[in-house]
């Protein structure tokens, strides 16, 4: 009995110690989404708030929140397509109070899109922060005619192309084959058929691939060294490489670059809601957006965001996108439950298939 009392006391003391301090804002976000400079400015403005950053990615964010039932963090930044199903299945977020967010400056189209994707039972769970695309990257001196996702499988570039073996390439390849995978989300049998076709195509394409890249670093190294001449890529990676070698360009595929929007969402057991809203409003201010975009390489979801990009990035974006390309963007659709499993199996099948 005494042991129990002691343990309870110790635990209580630890909890008290955790809450008694100045308020802490625990961010769960992507690398580059909380630059030192921005944190410094924020903490200057709100001296009683202390910002803690945990870097992660979509999958790990959800896994972490799922493990704790939505505790441990006060603000998360999953992509817009990763909220609905995750919330539905694991109940890890809580609805936002939009009245506490200054949305006047937010690009209406993106806001509407995110709201539409993340409204559950009339409540909105996310607002947009930054957005970007996945598409192709090519060295225009070596592979000038890369236009479509399918061109990565062009035998002309055998052993000189790369891709990341994740869902983006499945969707891109489906579009390139004339399918519309997003609309097939409502009919999973149909979607499975599409995936099977895509798998066959990508297995046949394996010969052409030098290696599947795993992260921005190895992709950059292969591209800069000339070991590959074209690859599936994130636009931000391509823009970064553009500043080192202007021949490396981001190419939105004919069927449209796949666009994602990273959002703000609040974990269900967040403890610093007020501070979280302060952070959201703070980083959506244009002068902070400038700092943020310089760090992330992605565009903020506010009006006139392109002008707030650093000069070299603006140039890279201009070299990549035309107005039609922007209109042609395909925003990732909400992933319904079960799709991740289907896609995962397809990816495993491709990985396990043998090639030379």
């Amino acid at each position, binding site marked *: 009995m005494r042991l129990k009392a002691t343990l309870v006391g110790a635990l209580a003391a630890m909890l008290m110690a955790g809450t008694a301090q100045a308020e802490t804002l625990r961010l769960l976000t992507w690398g580059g989404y909380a630059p030192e400079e921005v944190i410094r400015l924020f903490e200057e403005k709100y001296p009683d708030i202390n910002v803690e950053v945990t870097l992660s990615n979509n*999958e*790990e964010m*959800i*896994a972490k929140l*799922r493990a704790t039932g939505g505790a441990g963090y006060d603000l998360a930044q999953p992509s817009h397509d990763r909220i609905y*199903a*995750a919330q*539905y*299945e*694991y*109940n890890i977020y809580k609805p936002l109070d939009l009245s506490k967010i200054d949305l006047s400056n937010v690009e209406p189209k993106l806001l509407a899109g995110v709201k539409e994707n993340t409204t559950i039972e009339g409540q909105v769970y996310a607002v947009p922060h930054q957005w970007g695309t996945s598409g192709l990257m090519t060295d225009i001196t070596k592979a000038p005619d890369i236009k479509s996702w399918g061109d990565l499988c062009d035998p002309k570039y055998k052993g000189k192309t790369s891709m990341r*073996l*994740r869902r983006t390439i499945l969707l891109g390849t489906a579009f390139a084959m004339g399918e519309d995978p997003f609309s097939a989300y409502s009919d999973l049998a149909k979607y499975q058929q599409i995936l099977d076709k895509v798998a066959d195509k990508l297995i046949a394409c*394996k010969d052409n*691939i*030098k*290696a*599947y890249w*795993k992260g921005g670093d*190895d992709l950059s*190294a292969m591209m800069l*060294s*000339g*070991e590959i001449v074209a690859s599936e890529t994130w636009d931000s990676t391509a823009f970064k490489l553009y500043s080192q070698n202007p021949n490396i360009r981001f190419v939105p595929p004919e069927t449209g670059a796949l666009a994602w929007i990273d959002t703000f969402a609040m974990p269900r057991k967040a403890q610093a809601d007020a501070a979280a809203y302060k952070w959201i409003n703070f980083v959506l201010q244009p002068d902070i957006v400038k700092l943020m975009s310089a760090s992330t390489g992605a565009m903020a979801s506010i009006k006139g965001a392109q002008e707030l990009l650093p000069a070299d990035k603006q140039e890279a974006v201009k070299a990549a996108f035309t107005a039609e390309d922007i209109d042609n963007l395909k925003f990732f659709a909400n992933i319904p*439950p079960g799709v*991740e*499993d289907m*896609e*995962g199996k397809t*990816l*495993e*099948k491709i*990985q*396990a*298939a*043998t*090639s030379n």
Partner: protein
Amino acid sequence: MRSQRDIRRLSLFLLLAPFALWIVLLVALPQLGMLFLSLREKIAPRVYEYGFANYVSFAGEPIYWNTLLRTATMSLLVTALALVIGFPVAYYIAKIAGRRSRGALFLLILIPLWVSDLIRAFGWILLLRETGVVSSLLQWSGLVSGGIEFLYTDATVVVGLVYTVILFMIVPLVSTLDGMDEAMIEAGYNLGGNGFTVLRRIIIPYAMPGIVSGCIVTFMLTAGSYLTPILLGGKNSSWFTAQIYDQFITRYNWEAGATFGVLLLAFTSVVVWIGLKLSGQSLSTTVARS
């Protein structure tokens, strides 16, 4: 008398308590949790049932058990190579090198351990990539005309893994061989054995506890490794731990991930058990001794 024994028992209990807590909280409980999770089947969002469905689906999907078998085979290969390469090194350190150079040699072998797995893997990437050091040297020396890609093959994975785990083979071998009286080897020759007989009938049997414990550690480490096979592996190479990660993280399928985890543990344990049976050793004579 009685109370004294009680006191002794109590103090033993108190001494062992932290260790027992550690074992229970950090080893046993998570494993039980995994086992429990693996028996849960997701049939719809937020709807679960208990049963062996996850195991059935593992058995029904050749990709999974092929990957497991592949991982096990390659791990055995890595273990065998680590033994073949590590044994002479350990023998040299324990029996041939002088007292002073022994420390230095040991240190040399330890140095790679000061660097993280990730950095070591990147080291190999820098060396072996098409535009890397080895390929460039070969081109420079005129031996080959174009760049050669050494990365992204199973062979690279094996080399990288051997490099990563060989230390864990050498250390127990050195400590076992160190305790071997040189006279035993001389006696082996004196009684008419040639070099091969002495190695096979005296040195290896003597070092068997070290060999087996080194092999167990090496095999377990290899089968459970994640970074090296992922970073050095090619587009065809899948590693079982990567599949566990995928199930847990990218597919949100904790149930399948837990199943795979339990299966990996069970499978590697069975391999180790077979190894112990074949070598006529037991856990207490090997791992405990070295």
